[in-house]
């Protein structure tokens, strides 16, 4: 019998991480993500894992990257201001191709903002927070169940693609308590990073596997010696200014994700077949949006619902395929218009796109989104 619990989203993130094989957590207290660190502190040593409270946000992501290089699945959790502080080292993990999972429980910003209130203002920070080109993978859970399942997925993607994966939770999803059915061990897929097979003396640490553009990864301590640097590097991991090598490094970082976009993107739909109005929403907002769409349907309105689960890469082909009879696309989000830019790009003028932002720290009521639908209809 699968186990049923009544958990908050932040608890589900921890339990999902441990189920995924996470054995290291480096953290720093910040609302509204602190429960993740607190529960990790209690749970990780019970499975032989390591929890450490570091001296600041920067150190916590640094420790996580170090632990991952030493072979453990590792993650950290934070919120807006802490996410900003971690960005340089997140970029280090992109460049050095180290798998790490970063949970960002979004709160109102900018700056200290509204620490205890919900927002979706970090959609673009997740995409472009660190400097330099890179492909982002970010997942947005909308339920406690998804906090568990998508944290496992975040580890799987991170291990597979050797790069950071962001779980963009939000204050409502993180703190809301609801029923969760714990998947039984063995019922879900677990991915571990590819390990090198060759003799350590012949190991070329950044030589990509032509199959997927991803180099197998050795851990410090398992017999291989290699150099890790945030400088642009050649296949031996050693710094270089060679223009061809520098370009190929960045292009490969992009390519290793873009090639497999179709396998990464996740989304959800409801009543899209004959929809003339499509509501696009994610995270906590998707719950009130779905409620409003159901209400509209019950009144005979042709309204459908599209929920990106991977915010990055954005499920653009998938959304494009649903636009046939759609005349209006509605994008309610808890910011002044971030994801709508992706929606507008995909729609490309073929339908009208209307945004509705809310940045007062509250969540939309279903009636507000229903009224939004009525205005457009």
């Amino acid at each position, binding site marked *: 019998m699968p186990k049923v619990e009544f958990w908050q989203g932040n608890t589900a993130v921890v339990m999902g991480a441990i189920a995924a094989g996470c*054995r*290291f957590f*480096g953290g720093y207290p910040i609302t509204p993500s602190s429960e993740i660190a607190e529960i990790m502190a209690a749970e*990780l*040593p*019970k*499975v*032989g*894992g*390591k929890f*450490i409270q*570091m*001296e*600041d946000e*920067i*150190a*916590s992501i*640094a*420790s*996580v*990257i*170090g*632990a*991952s*290089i*030493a*072979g*453990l699945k*590792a993650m950290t959790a934070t919120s807006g201001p802490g996410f900003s502080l971690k960005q*340089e*080292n997140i970029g*280090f993990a992109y460049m050095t191709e180290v798998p790490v999972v970063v949970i960002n429980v979004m709160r109102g910003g900018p700056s200290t903002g509204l620490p205890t209130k919900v927002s979706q203002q970090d959609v673009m920070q997740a995409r472009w927070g660190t400097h330099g080109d890179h492909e982002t993978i970010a997942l947005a859970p909308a339920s406690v169940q998804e906090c568990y399942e998508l944290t496992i997925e975040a580890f799987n993607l991170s291990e597979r693609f050797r790069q950071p994966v962001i779980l963009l939770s939000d204050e409502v999803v993180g703190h809301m308590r609801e029923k969760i059915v714990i998947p039984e061990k063995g019922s879900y897929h677990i991915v571990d990073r590819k390990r090198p097979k060759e003799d*350590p003396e012949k190991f070329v640490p950044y030589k990509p596997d032509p199959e997927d553009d991803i180099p197998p990864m050795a*851990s*410090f*301590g398992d*017999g*291989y*010696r*290699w*150099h*890790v*640097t*945030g*400088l642009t590097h050649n296949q031996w991991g*050693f*710094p270089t200014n060679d223009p061809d090598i520098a370009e190929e490094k960045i292009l490969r970082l992009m390519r290793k994700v873009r090639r497999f976009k179709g396998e990464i993107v996740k989304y959800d739909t409801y009543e899209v077949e004959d929809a003339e109005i499509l509501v696009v929403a994610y995270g906590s907002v998707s719950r009130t949006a779905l409620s409003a769409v159901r209400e509209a349907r019950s009144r005979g309105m042709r309204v459908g619902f599209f929920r990106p689960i991977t915010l990055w890469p954005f499920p653009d082909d998938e959304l494009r395929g649903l636009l046939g009879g759609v005349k209006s696309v509605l994008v309610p989000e808890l910011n002044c218009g971030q994801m709508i830019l992706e929606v507008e790009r995909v729609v490309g003028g073929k339908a009208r796109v209307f945004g509705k932002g809310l940045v007062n720290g509250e969540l939309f009521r279903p009636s507000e989104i229903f009224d939004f639908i009525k205005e457009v209809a």
Partner: protein
Amino acid sequence: MPSQEVLNWLRTRFFPHIWCPGCGHGIIMHALLRALVDLGKKKEETVIASGIGCSSRMPGYIDACTLHTTHGRSLAFATGVKLANPELTVIDVMGDGDCTAIGGNHFIHACRRNIDITAIVMNNNIYGMTGGQASPTTPVGAYATTAPYGVLDVPFDICKLAAGAGASYVARATVAHPLLIEKYVRNAVSKKGFAVVEVVTHCHTQFGRKNKRPRPIDNINFFKDNSVMNNKASNMTLEELQGKIVIGEFVNIELPEYIEQYKNLIEEVGGNRG
């Protein structure tokens, strides 16, 4: 010439190194490698971490598990490595700017936490790589590109900082005393706990040119003439110690080590069974 054992620890195919001719960093790297050879360390079980700066390029030249991280943050990366795999010998090599300015917070907390890592701080009193800007260890009155009229603020004493923050082992040598560096590094790496070896070195290119020590030998002679062993220094007055570099071992004590404590915790909560 380095011994064959030392050469075996070098990635000579990545030479030439980036350091200026006459730089002190090579003396320190050689002493570090002699200490590792002497201790019988294995390359595949030794991690050399660093941040950003001239000194931080050292790990690239060492044929071990090497980790060149972001500016100031190497101790936090090294903490993750060591906690994840306590069997590894972890050494963190830093410059004065890296360790005491941008990385100051990580440095004092690594000392406080007393995690079994050795920090080697190469103190040349300047930001060399970026062109000779003042660092937290540039002496008052010395000239730097960001202190064209002389430095106003008082420098850190890195050893006092480490001792005050709780490190198990703290020592200082200069590049004029390579055997002393080797001995202190050997003691530091053998110490179960956080160990700090400050090595006073020179940047004749960026610091020396502006401060009347333009040639490498001017600096070596300066260190020879002005270093005082700490047992001798303890009998000297403050006036006599003015401008002197006090070298020696300042702290060498046994303290509870972080990872040992964490292992005990795992055992207490039954985590070693899973």
